[in-house]
């Protein structure tokens, strides 16, 4: 497919467990973003990767959150010791380069922490 894909689409976990969310960006897109969207809320920026540059982690809410991008393509967002307030939809987006390019979003992963 030509779009951004994310897996799993839904994840239910118990409080205290670790989770990994995956994002496959559009091939050739150098920029990749992770956002969090809580019920009825806007998109909250988490982290941004651009090519081989150091990622912008300024939006990560705590040190329980981390992300990596291997080979400039697939990205994994890891949440350690999940809390109930981590429940949200996690969206990934990619774009071609820098500046005002369009961001293409994946369908998101709905995370529920019991």
């Amino acid at each position, binding site marked *: 497919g030509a779009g*951004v894909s994310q897996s799993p689409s839904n994840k239910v976990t118990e409080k205290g467990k670790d989770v990994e969310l995956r994002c496959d960006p559009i091939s050739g897109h150098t*920029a990749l973003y992770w*956002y969090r969207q809580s019920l*009825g*809320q*806007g*998109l909250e*920026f988490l982290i*941004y990767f*651009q090519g081989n540059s150091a990622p*912008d982690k300024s939006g990560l809410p705590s040190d329980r959150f981390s992300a990596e991008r291997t080979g400039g393509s697939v990205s994994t967002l890891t949440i350690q010791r999940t809390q109930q307030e981590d429940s949200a939809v996690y*969206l990934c*987006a990619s774009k071609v380069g*820098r*500046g*005002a390019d*369009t*961001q*293409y*979003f*994946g*369908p*998101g992963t709905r995370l529920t922490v019991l």
Partner: protein
Amino acid sequence: SQKIEQNSEALNIQEGKTATLTCNYTNYSPAYLQWYRQDPGRGPVFLLLIRENEKEKRKERLKVTFDTTLKQSLFHITASQPADSATYLCALARNTDKLIFGTGTRLQVFP
């Protein structure tokens, strides 16, 4: 701190009318502004981009205005259709690749 405001209440209009959604911002001077559409259970989809030196941009039934003095963007859908029902998000950026999103306004178009 930077703040983007979109009407949190849903906008309900009749089919065929023009829908107008508002995006206001404070403590920010964006270089460009984007509008996205989001349907339930899906990621946002890009609609239009307007730069700080542009006052108006059109695409088919969509029109966006950008008033940097009022710190406001208006998003218009003319001849609205039930298929236009969705949540519409505005997003701003300055000299950075990071977009700041508003909370969105839900539009409901009734037949």
